[in-house]
């Protein structure tokens, strides 16, 4: 246990050391061109931070929800024989609730990208 902790300590220390020493010892000669974001050598064409459509957010959100669902299905599949009928009923109830959520998202127009 303590060895494991030491390993973490040493690696953490070395990592921190490298970052800090670089900061202290490195030469600090800078000019505007050097501070520019790297874009294959050509001058940057636009701002670094772009507005992106909110649909991404919706899709990410739905993906998260229906992805997490699977996480709950795995342990159920592992103990499927032991939990028996009760497990089946409970899992179907769970899937049913998710299905309702899916229908809600669908009807609400979360998948309609072009309006």
């Amino acid at each position, binding site marked *: 246990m303590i060895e494991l902790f030491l390993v973490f300590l040493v690696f953490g220390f070395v990592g921190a050391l490298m970052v800090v020493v670089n900061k202290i010892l490195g030469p600090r000669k800078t000019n505007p061109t050097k501070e520019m974001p790297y874009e294959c050598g050509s001058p940057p064409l636009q701002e670094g931070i772009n507005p992106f459509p909110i649909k991404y957010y919706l899709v990410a959100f739905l993906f998260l929800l229906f992805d997490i669902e699977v996480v709950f299905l795995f342990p159920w599949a592992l103990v499927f024989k032991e939990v028996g009928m009760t497990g089946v009923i409970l899992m179907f109830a769970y899937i049913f*609730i998710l299905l*309702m959520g899916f*229908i*809600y998202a669908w*009807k*609400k127009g979360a998948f309609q990208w072009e309006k």
Partner: protein
Amino acid sequence: MNSLNAMFPLLTLIVGALLVLILEVSIKRENKTYLAFISIIFLMICGFFCVQSWGKDFSYFNNHLYLDNFALFFSIVLIITTILVTLISMKYLSLQNTNVGEYYALLLLALSGMLIMVSSSDLIVIFLGLEVLSMSSYTLAGLKRDDQKSSEAALKYFLLGSFASAFLVYGLALLYGVSNSTSIAVIIDHFKTESSLSFMAFAGLGLVIVGFGFKIAVVPFHMWTPDVYQGAPTPITAFFSIGPKAVGFAVLVRLLYPFWHVAYDSEVIFSLLWIISALTMIIGNLIALRQTNIKRMLAYSSIAHAGYLMVAILSQDTSSLMFYFVVYLFMNIGAFAAVIALGKKDKEYLELDDYAGIGFKYPWIGATFAVFLFSLAGFPPTGGFLAKFYVFSAAVREGLVSLVIIGVLASLVSVYYYLRIIVYMYMREPTHEVDINLENPALFLVLFLCLYGVLQLGIFPGNILLIIKQAVSSIAFL
């Protein structure tokens, strides 16, 4: 008794919430009132199941869901709260341009989270319920989407709420580390065998209390309350001021009530809560003096009330705590209903100046609002007086005289700001025109019911005391 019956109230709520959601998206109607009626029907069925299982001790999931009378009592109180809140929201939503049907589904889901919390004595399950409640609450706080204040409220509530949840979970982890279990009973049993509590146990308990302190808004953890209460839609403010508080205190009773009896050095936790209680009563009432926005003032008043409830926790008198909650439910929802009544299309009257002359212009609203304010201040013959009386007399019996003196002085201060509204309503000339939308039968029903509740509890509290006695004697410390 292990039985599926224990699941029925929860199942009803969830089916109701899903049905409301599906109906909301499949029937395109401008008027969402029918969803309110559907959710009220489901709430009543849920209430019926709760009343039916009174005294039967149903349990399910290896006792992780245990419907003792204590849980049922709080469940019924919360169901009544939700019904009243649904009723006062019906007109409000269309007037204030927040016409979303999800509102009722979210209320039902929040209620289901609260029912999980009150009917479990396993800290992880309680945390699960808390998260169900919190997620719905954050959304409800931000439902006025074009209103900046409402969005601010939602974001603040979300950030501080998740911060508090982190505290709570860390506390749970430490308690689990000490006792190898998340069940309250096992943790307490473990404390019994130790001669003194380890530092880890203290830290764990402290963090759990901090986590719930955020939810019930006691003083060092009250910062979010005024902003959230002011920004959220007014019916939701009424809901926040009762629901999360009630469950927070119910869990604290389950956790601390056996703890006082077993641990040798519970004095540290006791004095900690003593200080929290005194600070809550003093600061809540003092800051309320300077508020001119009614919702903000009621927010600080609800902080102060959390302080009085803390006195009940400290004096180990669960029945006075429960009685206080029943009274608090009626008087606070009544007060908020009166505030909601003063509104018209896209306009709410929330400043103190708007209330000048209301007492003569709208005599019924003015008079009922005055009764609720008298009750909040603790005047006889209203329920508020008896509630404070029971809490403080129980505290005196337990020898907490100095705390009671602080409490009585603090509630004396509170009389000023409650009565100031009444002074404005009846003794000031109106400075500007206030016209309100009076076609709101559901709201007037709520005003009447709350008035009845406050007076009934103040004059003939016998029946409810009998029920509370049954509930207290059945608390199961599993």
